[in-house]
């Protein structure tokens, strides 16, 4: 009761405090700073721009500093004014301190709520139809508030332990320093102060970042609460020092027990976290995981049955293998490390198995041995759990996640991999139960057969190969159309429907594929006259091409990308640019990354050619050639390019900034201008198309080292001197001396 009455008094006092009001206002005002302070080199989803950056990356750490400062000042207030001798006689200092901290925690919660409400209208307006109120508020509740609480608890703990403002500040800075330092840069768990989130997706919203965010906040809240409770025991007694006071307070089990329990819970949660596996940090290239196969056709049939629970993000599955001839000796299967095998039977009898914590590339091995004399029996493996991310890619993408609005599972996160039993002729049947509003793709093929379960789920059935590589389900809209004999399925996030229609993306795809095929050669990824063009979640980290499939990252259609005038004069043209990367770049002819050469220049030039054909020479001249020349002219005029000797005087960080700006101009403007010059020299557009066609045809030769500038010159039969300088501006007399 005493604690509550102190709490009420402290709460009222703090609510009237100017310092608290200033911290509250500054915390609230800090949010818009994010998009000014951070320099983002790549395009982002709207939710990353308008929620992640302001709320998580800016408001959360700045508020954490402010509230920690307020906490230390408030904790020192009585000591500073010298009235603690009086107040200590009226109220137990530990109780008063606890009440003060609880009051500040309450106020920070109120400020979080107010901040979320203040920015709600503008965020909703900016994100328009991509805005989700639940997701918006969840970010405040998951990241901002717990981080502020952790910060307040640590700050108060440091003050109670040291009783010195400057020492508390130093300790806090040191602890925050660990979180912001390089050692924690990609570590979800170390970053207590500035939570790590890769990005967000607009079209395929995933709650995985919120899940791990909540989990890490819980870990640090437990640890901070433990330290804070211990610090309560350090509150000075009988005007004695730290150790004496702690010794006298040690018998307060009501405080000590929860302190130890809380800290232990935090450490336990950290150690047994279910999000990232225990594998190595780098991807390990393994020559051949296959064991010795002494019988090519061991399995006659496979039945996979999966049920996904989006609320918990878990899977519950069964794999039944009709085995003709069991493998002789100890056998191994690979499964996602987050899954537990709950049961393994062969011909109805339990099979003993052992799982070894030897995670590698997102897989964990389980060893078992089948009775070798039992032929034509069924091996049943039941497994369930929450899929973990392989450590080697966990800091750059979320590959396996089961959410209400988006599901992405790969390889062993779908079904077990029994390398000793597979054959080239093998096939399987798979049943997958998912929420009924999602559109599923199995191994990049749209699933069409389903049964409605009537409980908000559908069970989808499809024939598949023994090894399932990919299962993706989301809010997809699919447009099907034909280009000559090629059937194209264009699958994109339903959230982007407006953008697709507004920018006439379907017609653009037809134009691009027609143009690319005619000028550079058939898209190698198109197989059996079918091509699936699928948009991937930005959480996935990029696009890729397989036979019959070409995926591209979500942000190709984001407003950020479509307004990047470096890539094209309008949103449609930027999309043309991104699609032309099917020919130039990792999906087609792999280009070397050089100062004056990259796939970007080739793609910009191809975009210009396509646009010239589509909108006319005048348009292309104005928005491409003239724009490139102006950018190159400005680059030549730039002080540091005229005076490279000054560039050397700058710190490395600025040198690299200028080098990066130069590289961007070189790739997006100077290089296309050079290709245009080469086009003139080789005899015109048709000749250049021939050269580009030959380059694309020989893509296999350059897969390892990349196609470089020297290769281009060789294909054109030109020298560097032929092209260099001739495309520059009237002001570039001194440009030759500039180093790019």
């Amino acid at each position: 009761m005493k604690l509550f009455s102190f709490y009420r008094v402290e709460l009222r006092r703090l609510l009237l405090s100017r310092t608290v009001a200033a911290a509250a206002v500054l915390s609230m005002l800090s949010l818009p700073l994010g998009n000014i302070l951070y320099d983002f080199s790549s395009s982002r989803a709207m939710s990353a721009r308008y929620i992640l950056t302001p709320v998580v990356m800016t408001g959360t750490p700045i508020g954490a500093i402010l509230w920690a400062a307020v906490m230390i000042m408030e904790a020192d207030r009585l000591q500073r004014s010298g009235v603690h001798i009086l107040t200590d006689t009226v109220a137990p200092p530990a109780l008063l301190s606890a009440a003060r901290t609880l009051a500040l925690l309450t106020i920070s919660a109120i400020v979080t709520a107010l901040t979320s409400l203040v920015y709600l209208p503008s965020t909703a307006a900016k994100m328009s139809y991509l805005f989700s109120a639940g997701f918006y508020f969840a970010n405040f509740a998951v990241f901002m508030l717990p981080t502020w609480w952790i910060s307040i608890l640590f700050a108060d703990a440091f003050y109670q332990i040291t009783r010195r403002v400057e020492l508390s500040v130093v300790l806090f800075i040191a602890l925050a320093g660990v979180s912001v330092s390089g050692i924690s840069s990609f570590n979800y768990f170390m970053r207590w102060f500035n939570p790590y989130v890769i990005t967000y997706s607009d079209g395929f919203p995933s709650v995985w970042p919120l899940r791990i965010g909540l989990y890490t906040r819980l870990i640090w809240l437990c640890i901070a609460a433990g330290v804070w409770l211990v610090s309560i025991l350090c509150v000075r007694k009988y005007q004695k020092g730290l150790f004496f006071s702690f010794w006298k307070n040690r018998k307060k089990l009501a405080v000590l027990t929860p302190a130890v329990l809380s800290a232990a819970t935090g450490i336990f949660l950290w150690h047994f976290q279910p999000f990232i596996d225990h594998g190595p940090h780098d991807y390990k290239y393994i020559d051949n995981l296959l064991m010795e196969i002494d019988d090519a056709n061991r399995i006659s049939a496979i039945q996979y049955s999966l049920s996904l629970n989006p609320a918990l993000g878990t899977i519950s599955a069964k794999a039944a293998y009709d085995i003709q001839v069991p493998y002789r000796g100890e056998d191994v299967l690979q499964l996602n490390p987050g899954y537990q095998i709950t049961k393994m039977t062969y011909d109805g009898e339990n099979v003993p198995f052992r799982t070894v914590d030897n995670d590698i590339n997102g897989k964990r091995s389980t060893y078992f041995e089948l009775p070798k004399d039992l032929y034509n029996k069924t091996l049943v493996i039941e497994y369930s759990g929450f899929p973990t991310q392989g450590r080697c890619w966990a800091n750059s993408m979320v590959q396996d996640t089961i959410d209400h609005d988006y599901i992405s599972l790969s390889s062993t996160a779908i079904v077990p991999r029994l390398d000793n039993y597979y054959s080239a002729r093998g096939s399987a049947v798979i049943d997958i139960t998912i929420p009924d509003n999602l559109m599923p793709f199995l191994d990049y093929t749209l699933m069409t057969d389903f049964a409605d379960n009537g409980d908000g789920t559908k069970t989808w059935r499809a024939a598949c190969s023994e090894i399932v590589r990919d299962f993706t389900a989301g809010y997809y809209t699919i447009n099907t159309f034909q280009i000559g004999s090629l059937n194209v399925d264009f699958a994109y996030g339903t959230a982007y429907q407006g953008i697709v229609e507004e920018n006439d993306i379907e017609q653009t795809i037809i134009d691009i594929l027609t143009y690319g095929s005619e000028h550079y050669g058939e898209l190698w990824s198109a197989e059996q006259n079918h091509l699936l063009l699928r948009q991937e979640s930005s959480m996935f980290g990029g696009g890729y091409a397989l036979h019959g499939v070409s995926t591209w990252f979500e942000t190709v259609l984001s407003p950020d990308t479509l307004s990047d005038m470096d890539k094209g004069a309008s949103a449609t043209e930027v999309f043309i640019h991104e699609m032309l990367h099917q020919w130039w770049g990792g999906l087609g002819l792999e280009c070397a990354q050089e100062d004056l050469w990259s796939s970007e220049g080739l793609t910009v030039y191809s975009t210009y050619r396509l646009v010239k054909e589509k909108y006319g020479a005048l348009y292309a001249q104005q928005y491409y050639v003239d724009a490139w020349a102006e950018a190159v002219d400005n680059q030549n005029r730039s002080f540091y390019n005229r005076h490279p000797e000054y560039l050397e005087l700058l710190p490395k960080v600025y040198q690299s900034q200028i080098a990066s700006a130069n590289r961007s101009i070189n790739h997006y403007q100077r290089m296309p201008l050079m290709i245009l010059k080469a086009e003139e020299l080789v005899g015109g557009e048709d000749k250049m198309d021939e050269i580009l066609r030959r380059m694309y045809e020989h893509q296999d030769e350059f897969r390892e080292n990349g196609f470089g500038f020297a290769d281009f010159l060789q294909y054109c039969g030109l020298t560097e001197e032929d092209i260099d300088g001739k495309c520059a501006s009237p002001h570039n007399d001194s440009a030759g001396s500039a180093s790019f």
Partner: protein
Amino acid sequence: MKKIIYYELRRMLLNKTFFGMLLVNGLFAWFTLSYDIIMGTAYTAPFSLWSYCVYLGRTLPLAMITVLLLLANYYYSRKQKQVEILTSATPVSSFCQIMIRTLAAGICFLLIYLVVIVLALLFYVSFFRFHDFAAFVLPSVVLLLPCFVLFTSLGQLLGSIHRSLVYVLMLLAFALHSITGAFDFFGAGYFSTVPLTLPIGTDGEPAFEISAAFLITRLLYVVLGIICIYLATLLSARKSQKA
């Protein structure tokens, strides 16, 4: 009179708000130098007069807000209003009071710009080994003086009407920080766009010149500032008579 000036200065300068804002101004100035000016303005050198003027122009809004904040806190606060009856009873005229306030604000402004300019000089010396600062004096006066006169006098005029109007003026300072052309109060917009329109000299940079229109506008701001001070004196005198 000397005593009054001494105490006014002490009141305005020796307090946490001034030192806090001085620190903020210094940090902002360094941030501007190291993230913006370091790249040079309009393709000119970071130590060109163009870039230097843009630097002053970028730091001016915050400096003016600081001066207005100090005026609002120390001369137009509620407490100050309460003691106005007493101060009006002193033999010091309204004009003298206004001038003392202007002087105090001017010294604050000078101290802020002492820090801002020293930072720029340190920056130029340490990064570019550039020492030729004589040419910086005149553009500094052209940029800083009209701005200070106009904002301080307007601040005092508005403050004597209603305290909250000083805060409106602060918002105005924010809003006007990026206008271009001859009417640019702070000059950052003017000095970052004009060099792009000028012919390039033999050294690859346009020669520094300030247009007559810009100079006349600066002069007009000073005249407007003097008028505002006159009006503020009249208003203050009328209030004293009422009291």
